[in-house]
């Protein structure tokens, strides 16, 4: 069964890298460019996992994560923070919102695949 992955990042580059990274796997990647769009996309698509940036316009990743945790239909979705800010203060704030993991930017695609496989399982396309 295809896994559903949502990437929420204001950078087109990051969204494209996430999409290309998962192209060899049985999954569908959707994208949103800020936290507000990310919450809407999560409600609409019910992803199995979300990769979330922190610093974004309109609604930050931490605000979006809080919103997701308050929304029963998507509250249990694993959210991985994919962020250039890896200081204890930011990560602590995400921890309080039950984040499933962190990947610091700069990153390599393998890191996304490994963590996704660990959290929700992934299979390669034949």
């Amino acid at each position: 069964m295809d896994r559903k992955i949502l990437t929420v990042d204001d950078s087109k580059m990051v969204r494209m890298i996430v999409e290309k990274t998962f192209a060899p796997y049985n999954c569908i990647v959707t994208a949103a460019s800020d936290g507000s769009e990310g919450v809407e996309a999560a409600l609409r698509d019910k992803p199995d996992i979300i990769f979330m940036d922190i610093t974004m316009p309109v609604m930050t990743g931490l605000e979006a994560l809080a919103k997701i945790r308050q929304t029963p239909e998507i509250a249990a979705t694993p959210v991985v923070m994919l962020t250039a800010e890896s200081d204890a203060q930011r990560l602590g704030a995400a921890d309080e919102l039950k984040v499933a993991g962190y990947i610091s930017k700069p990153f390599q695609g393998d890191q996304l695949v490994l963590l996704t496989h660990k959290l929700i399982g992934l299979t390669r396309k034949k």
Partner: protein
Amino acid sequence: MSATPPPISQLSLWLVSSVHNVFDTMFQLSAEQMPAENIDLPAGETVAVSIGFAGQVNVEVLIYAPSQAAVQLASIVLDMPAAELDQPTVGDVMGELGNMVVGAVKSNVSDLGLDCTMTIPSVSFVSECRTPLHSADSSTTLGFEFHGGKCLIELVLKPAA
């Protein structure tokens, strides 16, 4: 009592380390630091990125790279032919490069106990690189060479608000 803000010399060391890490990880390129005065950016269109963080320490970082070098970086990281890249995509790559470079510096500052918030990168395409205008004791300009490309990075430490 809050921690003492780091001097510009320490911020500069963090910035250099971060540039090396970003180029190595995202572009699989080695970025060699050069004296800024030895970096002569070619005439023509230049991509200028402004990004920083504000709070108990206020920093602005300005990145200048010739458009050709920026296209080269975008082509590598997106695994796309240069001819297929439009200006907004190249600008986005350079903005995210700035975000990653400065994010690591900001994280180091925050880990000292100093509260700061990152700004959203601002990217523009200018006809030529302007000469850095800031005074020597509040700013420093670093030069980098990578796979035939060059860039200048100006680090400006601003007074606390």
